[in-house]
């Protein structure tokens, strides 16, 4: 389980920076949404960073991921540029998707990020397709599907387990179980267990502590290696916590205050920091310096996005077809 501690110093710093960037991005968006400057629906990944980063640290340009409505973290973890992401959240012309997608549809195909998705569970079939492409064209690529405990009840997801298994696709299913499908507790809404479901389809499956980057990293490494070497799909049931509501504006009254307190005491970034500092792998002041840099970067992206031009009427009708 501690194999993640064998990561190189650069890799550890990289992992920390990615997680910290996600957190700062989400905290900034949280504040801006509360101030009324962000349109639409926004779902934040704060608290879940170790999952996206722990998995994506194993991925490269050959690999693809499908994300969820809670997709900012997966984007950053997969290496999507943060500035254009911020523009997109604000609906600006220079956004990653020209302001046409918004928070729920951020995608960067050039980075293998197949999109956040407004439809719960819809990424699972798409990932099977991306894996089929990798298998057919022999790219060596792996496709990872991030989805929540809510999505785990969707037929699209369960069907995809089966398709990935029978076609022996290089897929990793990462069930991010933050305990709630919107307001509904996964302890109530999920019959059986995530691991049991995966195993029922003949898919190697294991439970992972999503507040522990190193646990995620190790489990994901095994699953991705299996996929890459032709061993077919795997499933990870990552238990984690979201620090904010289902969406911004959710008062979160279904969650007891002490639950949230307990969740925050298992902050994956804090735990990561403790581990690497205590093991003398990275000095605390280096991480502090990274924090300051990231805070400044996010502030810069935020200010740039807020003052950037909106798309215009000329943009409304473009990008529907390649040719029509």
């Amino acid at each position: 389980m501690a194999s993640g501690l064998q990561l190189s110093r650069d890799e550890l710093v990289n992992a920390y920076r990615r997680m910290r960037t996600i957190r700062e991005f989400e905290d900034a968006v949280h504040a801006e949404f509360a101030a009324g400057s962000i349109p639409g629906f926004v779902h934040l990944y704060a608290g879940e960073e170790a999952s996206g980063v722990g998995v994506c640290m194993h991925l490269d340009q050959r690999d693809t991921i499908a994300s969820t409505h809670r997709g900012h973290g997966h984007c950053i973890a997969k290496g999507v540029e943060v500035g254009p992401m911020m523009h997109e959240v604000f609906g600006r012309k220079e956004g990653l998707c020209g302001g046409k997608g918004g928070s729920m549809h951020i995608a960067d195909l050039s980075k293998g990020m197949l999109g956040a998705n407004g439809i719960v569970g819809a990424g699972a079939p798409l990932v099977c397709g991306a894996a089929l492409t990798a298998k057919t064209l022999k790219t060596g690529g792996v496709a990872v599907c991030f989805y929540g405990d809510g999505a785990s009840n969707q037929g699209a997801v369960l069907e995809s387990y089966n398709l990935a298994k029978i076609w022996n696709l290089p897929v990793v299913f990462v069930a991010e179980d933050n305990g709630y499908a919107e307001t509904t507790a996964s302890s109530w809404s999920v019959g059986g267990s995530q691991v049991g479901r995966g195993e029922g389809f003949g898919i190697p499956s294991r439970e992972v502590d999503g507040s522990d980057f190193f646990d995620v990293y190790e489990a994901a490494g095994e699953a991705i290696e299996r996929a890459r070497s032709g061993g077919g799909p795997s499933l990870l049931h990552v238990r984690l916590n979201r620090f904010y509501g289902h969406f911004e504006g959710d008062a979160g009254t279904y969650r007891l205050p002490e639950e949230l307190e307990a969740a925050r005491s298992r902050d994956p970034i804090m735990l990561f920091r403790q581990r690497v500092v205590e093991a003398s792998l990275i000095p605390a002041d280096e991480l502090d310096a990274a924090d300051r840099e990231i805070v400044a970067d996010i502030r810069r992206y935020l200010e740039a996005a807020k003052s950037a031009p909106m798309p215009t009427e000329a943009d409304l009708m473009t990008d529907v077809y390649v040719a029509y």
Partner: protein
Amino acid sequence: MSKKSYRQAINEALRQEMERDERVIIMGEDISGGTGAAGDQDAWGGPLGVTKGLRPQFGPDRVLDTHLAEISFVGAAAGAALTGLRPVVELMFVDFMGVCFDQILNQTAKFRYMFGGKAVTPLVIRTMYGAGFRAASQHSQCLYPVFTHIPGLKVALPSNAYEAKGLLIQAIRDDDPVIFFEHKAMYDDEMEVPDEPYSIPFGEANVTREGDDVTIVAFGRMVNLANQAADSLAKQGVSCTVVDPRTTSPLDTETILETVEETGRLVVVDEAHPRCGMASDIAGLVAENAFDALEAPIKLVTAPHVPVPFSPALEDIYIPSVAKIEAAVRAAMSHGSKVAAE
């Protein structure tokens, strides 16, 4: 050039495109048939034999039998298209869109726009539609108006074997997602079809009959009924223009409007239901843009607003017929100056 059925024309288009481009793969339920079984691995070639022979030629990596679970394999085809393949997925009967529509409606159709023009999704969904097979309510619908309604999708409706081959090759080479509608009652219809590959551009209507009195716009299999009606009416002294739009999205509005300007009368023939169908769509288009040219009310010949019945006695009444088209043309002719002049 040789005589080919609608079925053979589609099979040939698939084979020639798979030979041309190794990124073209096909997948669907039983499109080879027999996967995992001890016997024949090309047992069916699809439920009506359209893809027969492709598995032996291209192998199981490019001709993929799927499990019987549409949302995952239609979605997988979309995901494969988004990442570099050019899949042709068979949704056996279009009625089954009920179990996989999200992947078409909210995923495939939206990628390009949502992602700011950076996605290319060269996906073809081949699907069977239409009544006349005694297949009843869940295996006989048209539904192409539903897909036509959705920006981001293209919709092709080949009306014969020649059209089927050319439009399918275009669909496979097209960089946008295409829903390709095959009328199940036409698979055995034969005609001369070129042996070499050719494509028919989308959004360019085919005028199959030219006349002065009435324009008939018809879709898919209805084009053939409209042609028969036009031939019969010609003997009665009524000359019709018949327009086969070939694709409902994109739609060649120009040819439709031009021909109506010339004839002054319009009959639209659509096997789909009347509400929000292609017939009402074309009627709206002409009423808005060529109102002054009209000498008679627009007449629509459609299936009624009921599910497709099973009993042959009922289904035969349900489907628009040559007689109904002729009656609609005569009704259009009973209005306006042309009748007065006669």
